[in-house]
């Protein structure tokens, strides 16, 4: 546990565990609602906010958060109105990436910061990041604990859920808002490209041996946090990039367990 004696590693661990927990909780609903591409797309929309911040020379959190939350709610609105969610996200995804690149190209020395945001740097997490992540994780955990039935029922049968008395719009938009906020906070730590892996893989691993949605909300965050702990430890000991190390661990666990399950059937 030597690595925890370094303050930057301790901050990385606390920040990583907070972000990993909230992404995994969000991931359960994302996977159940079959909106994995939506989750992946949202992190790429963050790129437009980062490009704008680089151009203006300001802290990227607020512009990125504003752009991602707005885009999420707009996409959610189109989805509720019956538009093709995949198509809308495909357009928004590409336009945001192009906009981010276009805006940042006006800033000098933009390639370094852009690489940081594309692949993230969990070791750069600050006390302020931990503060915001704590608030976000607590909000996500409370929302999931109190609305997990509604979220799962809506995923299973939306028409019936509406008639049964669920306020579909309120639950859906609150979920999208928390999802957008969690993703923006996670981008700094794990990067735009790797965020979707933290949303999907812990849930995919849990689904191999968990067959009850209630347990998924407990097991997926555990899978995520254990992987983050070992990934950070390995990256410290062998001087490896932290984010990719964690994802490779998650991927290896998923494929190993899947193969074992297939062989066992």
């Amino acid at each position, binding site marked *: 546990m030597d690595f925890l004696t370094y303050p930057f590693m301790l901050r990385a661990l606390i920040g990583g565990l907070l972000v990993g927990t909230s992404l995994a909780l969000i991931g359960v609903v994302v996977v159940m609602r079959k909106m994995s591409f939506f989750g992946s797309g949202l992190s790429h929309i963050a790129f437009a906010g980062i490009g704008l911040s680089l151009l203006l020379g300001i802290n990227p959190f607020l512009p990125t958060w504003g752009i991602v939350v707005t885009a999420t709610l707009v996409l959610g609105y189109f989805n509720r109105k019956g538009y093709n969610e995949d198509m809308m996200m495909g357009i928004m995804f590409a336009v945001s990436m192009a906009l981010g690149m276009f805006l940042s190209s006006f800033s000098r020395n933009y390639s370094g910061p852009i690489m940081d945001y594309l692949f993230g740097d969990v070791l750069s997490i600050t006390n302020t990041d931990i503060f915001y992540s704590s608030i976000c994780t607590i909000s996500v955990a409370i929302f999931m604990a109190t609305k997990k*039935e509604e979220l*799962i*029922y809506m995923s299973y*049968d939306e028409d019936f859920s*509406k*008639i*049964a008395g669920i306020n579909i719009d309120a639950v859906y938009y609150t979920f999208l808002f928390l999802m957008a906020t969690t993703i923006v906070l996670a981008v700094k730590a794990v990067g735009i490209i790797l965020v979707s892996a933290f949303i999907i893989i812990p849930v995919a691993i849990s689904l191999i041996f*968990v067959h009850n*949605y209630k347990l998924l909300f407990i097991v997926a965050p555990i899978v995520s946090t254990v992987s983050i702990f070992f990934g950070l430890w390995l990256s410290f000991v062998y001087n490896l990039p932290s984010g990719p190390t964690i994802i490779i661990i998650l991927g290896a666990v998923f494929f190993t367990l899947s193969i074992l399950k297939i062989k066992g059937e």
Partner: protein
Amino acid sequence: MDCIKIENLNVVFGNKRILENININLSEKRIYSIVGPNGGGKTTLVKSILNLTPIKNGKIEIFGKPNYVYIKENYIGYLPQNSQEFKKFPIKVIDIVLMGLIREKKVFGYGKECIERAINALKVVGMKENKNKLIYQLSGGQRQRVMIARAIVGNPRILILDEPTTGLDTKSQKQFFDLLEKFKEELNMTILIVTHDLGFVNSYTDEVICINKTIGSKKHNLKCPPEFFSSSLYGYDIKMVEHNHHKGD
């Protein structure tokens, strides 16, 4: 009081008119069958009543209130079309039934009373023993029974079933139809059932709504004239024969 009152209902999808000038009054404690050809607007009518599909114009009232107000305040039992479709979803049978009691859920989950009611509903449809199984582990017919339990668990005054006997064998169909009669008699339910089972229509229904874009009866009084089961509805003549297939002995 009319249970459901529909006035001048028109539903249009794009350029296609699905329902045209529908006017019907449904009374309490009766079983209504909605029959008609595929694409005739049966499911759209049901979804309009349930405020699940936008209507172009017209008025729908349930027990004197606009349908969207009534649905917000009260539970209507609903079994959607193809609800028994296979979905590999990690949810237990009991949790599916509890969906019907979401209004009574406490902050962090359901109370003991709700769980007992869900188990009771499963008992009514003969699925109590399967309460802890995953929904995708059941056969199509068993899944359909679970969906029926979900529809009735909230003790609704109105039960709307869209092709409920799909996937049920003959014996289960008879049990199901007997169950509907029991609901009507003992629980005072009004039951609307979309069906292609003309045997059921003949044996169990109080009144028939024939629909192919518009209501079949000229007087709109829901009495479906035998001649309407002809080219105007199905495109070919159907002769209705009284029989005891579903009624049993």
